[in-house]
């Protein structure tokens, strides 16, 4: 027998496929991973601590920088938490604008995921197709909020800007366009034999494990748990829309792929209903005092972000700044199962598994 040795391989923090500054230290035997230790924190900016010294409205731009691929949902979770504490009534039109922007953000986020996941697997073109279509969404969101990634759009009690003239029509036009593009995506990738062999049976976990690891979002629904906060604990006005919660049973990367794709379709359905129902005029910001003081006490709200359950906990001592602010950041929780999934896999699968979890490092590190 030849003497063999385990090798220590340092993947990241600068690596093309770790989606940011994520580092993972591998013990490999040939190409087979024996042990994996993720190292996080390279993008830690102390959002929660900074927030303790800021007024509630001032925290909103910081939430943009957490999950920068779906900043609207982050905006919302903070506003929602404060509104729950204060007990603000949100104007009808503002609620609809919030839902429309959040769902557009969800589609954009899933498109980025789709493109980069395929890029991880070695296909270069899907990335550019996804970004072409995402660009349209970004332009829409830019028109309404003035920002392309960090929107700073929502305010406590509503939204900052009303939709410009013709904006709702543009969203209406976008929906059928996106559906058509999805067909093309399926033709290019979904049926590809090489792609299927790369994702089927890769990174499989069971329902119980998913629950034990507190996974959420598509990472949970791919194991057959039908859990979507938009449906199970409707917030905002999600109870007014007809939509499905896509679920797959197999719990592998392929299931996650299908779930996310189906979610794009469902988001488009929600969008379609929302742009039909939105009142043509009305207030977009509730009557709130200039300086918002949350009453003494605490509140925890959670909503469904593209990556899973994003939660916001606020402890207030009655001042204009929170006493403690804590975000339950879904990427951080979803990432925890990674070392367990990696043992016994090879390096190619490492990339596929990490890509399928869909993390945003800004959110993992907070």
């Amino acid at each position, binding site marked *: 027998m030849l003497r063999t040795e385990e*090798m220590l*391989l340092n993947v990241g923090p600068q*690596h*093309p*496929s770790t989606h940011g500054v994520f580092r993972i230290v591998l013990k490999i035997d*040939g*190409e087979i991973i024996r042990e994996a230790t993720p190292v996080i924190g390279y993008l830690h900016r102390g959002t929660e601590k900074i927030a303790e010294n800021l007024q509630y409205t001032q925290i909103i731009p910081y939430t943009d920088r957490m999950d920068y691929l779906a900043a609207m949902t982050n905006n919302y979770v903070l506003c929602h938490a404060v509104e729950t504490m204060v007990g603000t009534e949100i104007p009808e039109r503002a609620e609809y604008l919030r839902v429309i922007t959040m769902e557009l953000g969800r589609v954009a986020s899933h498109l980025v995921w789709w493109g980069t996941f*395929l*890029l*991880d*697997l*070695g*296909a*270069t*073109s899907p990335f*550019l*197709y996804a970004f*072409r279509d995402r660009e349209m969404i970004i332009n829409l969101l830019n028109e309404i909020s003035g920002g392309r990634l960090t929107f700073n759009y929502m305010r406590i009690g509503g939204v900052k800007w009303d939709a410009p003239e013709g904006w709702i029509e543009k969203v209406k036009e976008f929906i059928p366009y996106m559906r058509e593009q999805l067909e093309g995506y399926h033709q*290019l*990738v979904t049926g*590809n034999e*090489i*792609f299927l*062999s*790369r994702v089927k049976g890769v990174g499989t976990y069971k329902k119980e494990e998913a629950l034990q690891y507190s996974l959420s979002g598509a990472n949970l629904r791919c194991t057959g748990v039908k859990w979507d906060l938009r449906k199970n604990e409707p917030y905002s006005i999600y109870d007014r829309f007809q939509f499905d919660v896509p679920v797959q049973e197999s719990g592998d990367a392929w299931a996650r792929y299908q779930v996310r794709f189906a979610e794009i379709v469902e988001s488009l359905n929600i969008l379609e209903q929302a742009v039909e129902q939105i009142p043509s005029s009305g207030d977009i910001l509730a009557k709130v005092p200039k300086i918002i003081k949350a009453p003494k006490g605490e509140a925890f709200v959670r909503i469904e972000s593209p990556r899973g359950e994003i939660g916001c906990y606020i402890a207030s001592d009655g001042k204009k700044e929170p006493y403690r602010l804590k975000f339950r950041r879904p990427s951080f929780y979803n990432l925890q199962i990674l070392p367990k999934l990696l043992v016994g896999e*090879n*390096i*190619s*699968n*490492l*990339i596929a598994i990490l890509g399928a979890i869909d993390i945003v490092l800004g959110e993992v590190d907070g």
Partner: protein
Amino acid sequence: MQELLYASPSLMNFAYFFLLAVLMLFFVLGFVTYVILAERKVMGFIQLRKGPNQVGGSWGLLQTVADVLKLLIKEDIIPKLADRPLYKLAPIIAFAPSFMVIAVIPFTDKFQFADIGVGLLYYIAISGLTTIGIVTAGWASNNKYALLGAMRGAAQMISYEIPLVMSVVGIILLTGSLNLNDIVAAQEKVWFIVLQPVAFIVFFIAATAELNRIPFDLPESENELVAGYYVEYSGFRFAFFMLTEYVYMFAMSALITVLFLGGWMPLPFLGFIPGAVWFALKFSVVVFMFLWMRSTFPRVRADQLMEFGWKVLLPVALANIFLTAIIKELVNLF
């Protein structure tokens, strides 16, 4: 050219050959320059981009030239802990065979550098040497990613060289010769892509793997191993590896043209167009296929690659030999 090949050796003839070889080198370099541009343009077209469009007009005609110049004037960096002699040797080991194989390819019935009896065997044997360059590069760089890439490269070459050879045995059976000229001559009526479709498919897949191109670019796999075996190389040494890759693409496309697409043979009724044009046309189609595949497919996994090579391609190639032999005997009988 043909007379030169059979003339007795003399200093004068050597000088001729040397000159011609240098000319060929420049021709191949020119090809590499523009196939890189073509690749970027085609990929740009497929991916909704423009591709190079600044250097040398809106077509970016001088882009690659500029890139090569940049590589040549870059600082020569050798990692501190690298095995210096091997590190310097590796690009040469990888490059030399890629240019050597071009000698046996008959571009037209008159233009060929070496008309040797076992041309096909020569090609396959020499091209296998490049693997040594890749493994050397991976080892000498003293980088873990490079080492992994080199290991993958070696495993891949071994597994795909065999189906590559096996798939052309059918053609050899039909032609009765390993000489590439004879193989082209045998396709005067029907191209071998028609007579040997299975062999063509197997050969094409194995050739893609030999060329380290997507979906088989595992030794490089930029998303997993960053750049694989040449991760530590920069400047002109890196340029040599790139050159190797594209010269092989030139050689392999030419070989496919010769083996399956009838080389310089014209289509029926179009014989007035010279053979060189036909060769260039068919050759371009093959090159385009490689470019097209690169922008369409994801990459396969190392273990799947092995499985596919040994469990699918090899048996199919063997079955093809068997069938070809039986059919040939039956045709001879009746």
